């Protein structure tokens, strides 16, 4: 039911979103065909196929998979054409990440089939451990000048954050998308709600009731997604959970399951209230409720900003607030999910050093600035608020400043190869306990935690 996701929730686990002008089409199979397969093929099909397939593998080319959303395609197209113009000996071939239900599934299958590109951008760190387990990712720290470059750009702690327990660096920190809530300025005022009222759960739920009463159920304050794709549901939970737990992820430092805690219960209970009280419909619509004005508040990230700019109806005004927290945390600084996305070289690459050269180019100050101005997202770069390359962009996009402020208090995801399975388990119980209400929210959460423990303690 992708049709119902009327704006690309790109800060979610998957990266696939709007259109993409798709560049030239690769022909790599001739080179990869192993001897056994080739012999069999030759015997069975003969020269006809060979003639048709006869593509060339002439020069050094680096395959690059960027995300398939329009802004990132635009950015990738620009830097690739710039690079290719300047480096005739090392050409970049770009293809947006092939879409499916989730990009992690696509990359995982590509690792299994050894058809990964040299470089992919927009990789979700939650999937990294699984990719490492599968032997798909390159150990970047051995690249010439890697550590120096990354420390200078992103700072020691960010680099440390993305260093695998084994000491290898399997991912290159690229950008963040801190999650906040966007609200409809006019309608909120019409219902007599102050944005500040939405800071805590009690205030938020009172406001939700107010909206129902004011418009007789025609409009809702907030409508958590009921999309069929599991990660859509999961991230409604996760942003709120990080805020409620003040930055505690699902597992503790020792890898033990801890999300069956007060924070988890509060979030499940909070979200369940919307469906139980009828503040949010269980059915899906084909329209974007936020733009239609039938939903007054929704989750937003830097990523959603270009979408708002391009698609919001005329006269639509929105503002940004931190995600709501349980009452006990009122007045304290709010943490949120940072939704980081990274870059990596794959072990299938025959030219990792050349690939790294290209990545250094992507991560150069100029291109970070270009990226920020095209996509409105936040690169993992130190000192942007004072850097003259970035200050004009920040002045032009005031919303970005709000996100930059929030970036200081973000959390990512845990480092476990079972993360996606754990997410799926939570998402499943979330559907049962929160959306459909077939069990108590707290029971559902406990079941999810038990499943997570089972998953971690071993498949059997």
């Amino acid at each position, binding site marked *: 039911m*992708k*049709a*119902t*996701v*009327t704006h*690309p929730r790109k800060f979610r686990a*998957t990266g*696939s*979103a*709007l*259109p*993409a*002008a*798709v560049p030239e*089409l*690769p*022909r*790599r*199979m001739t080179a*990869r*065909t*192993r001897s*056994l*397969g080739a012999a*069999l*093929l030759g015997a*069975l*099909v003969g020269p*006809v*196929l060979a003639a*048709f*397939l006869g593509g060339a593998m002439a020069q050094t080319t680096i395959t690059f998979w960027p995300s*398939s959303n329009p802004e990132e395609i635009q950015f990738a197209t620009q830097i690739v054409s710039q690079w290719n113009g300047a480096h005739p000996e090392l050409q970049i071939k770009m*293809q947006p990440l*092939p*879409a*499916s*239900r989730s990009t992690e599934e*696509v990359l995982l*299958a*590509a690792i*299994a*089939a*050894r*058809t990964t590109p040299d470089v992919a951008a927009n990789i979700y760190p939650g999937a990294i451990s699984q990719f490492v387990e599968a032997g798909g990712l390159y150990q970047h720290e051995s690249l010439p000048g890697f550590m120096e470059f990354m420390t200078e750009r992103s700072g020691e702690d960010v680099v440390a954050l993305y260093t695998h327990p084994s000491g290898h660096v399997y991912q290159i920190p690229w950008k963040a998308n801190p999650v906040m809530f966007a609200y409809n300025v006019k309608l909120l005022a019409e219902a007599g709600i102050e944005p500040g009222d939405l800071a805590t759960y009690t205030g938020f739920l009172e406001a939700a009731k107010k909206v129902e009463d004011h418009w007789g159920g025609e409009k809702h304050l907030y409508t958590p997604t009921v999309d069929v794709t599991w990660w859509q549901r999961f991230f409604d939970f996760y942003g709120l959970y990080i805020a409620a737990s003040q930055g505690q992820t699902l597992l503790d430092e020792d890898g033990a399951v801890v999300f069956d805690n007060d924070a988890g219960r509060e979030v499940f209970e909070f979200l369940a209230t919307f469906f139980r009280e009828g503040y949010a419909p269980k059915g899906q619509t*084909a*329209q974007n409720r936020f733009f239609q004005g039938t939903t007054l508040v929704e989750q937003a990230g830097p990523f959603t900003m270009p979408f708002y700019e391009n698609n919001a109806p005329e006269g639509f005004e929105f503002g940004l607030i931190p995600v709501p927290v349980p009452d006990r945390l009122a007045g304290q600084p709010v943490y949120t999910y940072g939704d980081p996305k990274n870059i990596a070289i794959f072990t299938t690459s025959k030219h990792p050093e050349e690939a790294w050269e290209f990545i250094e180019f992507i991560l150069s100050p100029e291109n970070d600035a270009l990226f920020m101005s095209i996509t409105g997202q936040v690169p993992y770069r130190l000192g942007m608020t004072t850097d003259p390359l970035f200050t004009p962009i920040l002045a032009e996009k005031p919303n970005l400043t709000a996100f930059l402020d929030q970036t200081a208090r973000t959390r990512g995801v845990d480092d476990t190869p079972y993360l996606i399975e754990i997410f799926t388990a939570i998402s499943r119980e979330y559907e049962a306990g929160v959306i459909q209400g077939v069990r108590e929210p707290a029971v559902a959460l406990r079941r999810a935690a038990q499943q997570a423990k089972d998953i971690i303690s071993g498949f059997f």
Partner: protein
Amino acid sequence: MSLPTSSYALQRRLKSWPLAFRRLLFYALLLLGALTFLMPFLYMVSTSLKGVREMHTMNLIPREPTLDHFKAVFTQIPIGRAMLNSFFVYGLQTASVLVFSSIVGYALARLKFFGREFIFNIILLTMMIPGQLLLIPLYILIVQFGWADSYQALIVPGMVSAFGIFLFRQNFKTIPQELIDAAHVDGATELQILFRIVWPLSLPSLITVGIFTFMGGWNDFLWPSIVNRELGVQTLTQMVTLYGIGGQAGGQTGAVMASSLLAVVPMVIVYLVFQRYYLEGIASTGVKG
């Protein structure tokens, strides 16, 4: 006309009505039935031509028809390439099935050799193996061959069809022995006999196997989506489906329906041209059962 589910009493009552009226009622119901089957297609065509503004109206004929959705599809995904891929891959596969299956079918029907019945039984047995059982190992095999993201991955596992062999064997058995003996006297090899004498006499079964092979491939989503991910080797059905669910269409119902239409039309044309062979193919499955 007989309405098998109606009760006896109802039939009596209906019988007392004037014939003309009964006919009218019958055709009205039948037309309603036909519309039930056509409606989703009409909806697809209509939606693919509707502008964004009337997207959520119920009218079937767009007031301001537009080709914008088709333009969007062609700029967003290489759908032309996908269509060529589908024609190439499944055309080749169909040709291969016809050639190889008929050769085997011919051997099983017309040549005597030790173990023939054994081989035939193997073929009957393979027809009973559910495809799901082989899905994972076949995928792994394709990976081991290094065929992921390639045409071979799509073509080769379907190059011979047990169903085709079975059907050809049954058909070739009915060809008079005199014709074959006469060809032998003229010095024809078995291959020559197969292609010059048996084939022309078996056109209906060739066409039947051909269209079912082609259709089965064309409409498949699961296998291509497992083995191939690169855009350049995606099939039409695969690309359109991924476009529809993968979010690339960004919820543009019109564009999704436009791309769906493009994927459906070739099969509908094939069907309209070869209609009677579909009936034959299905009827012969019936014989099998």
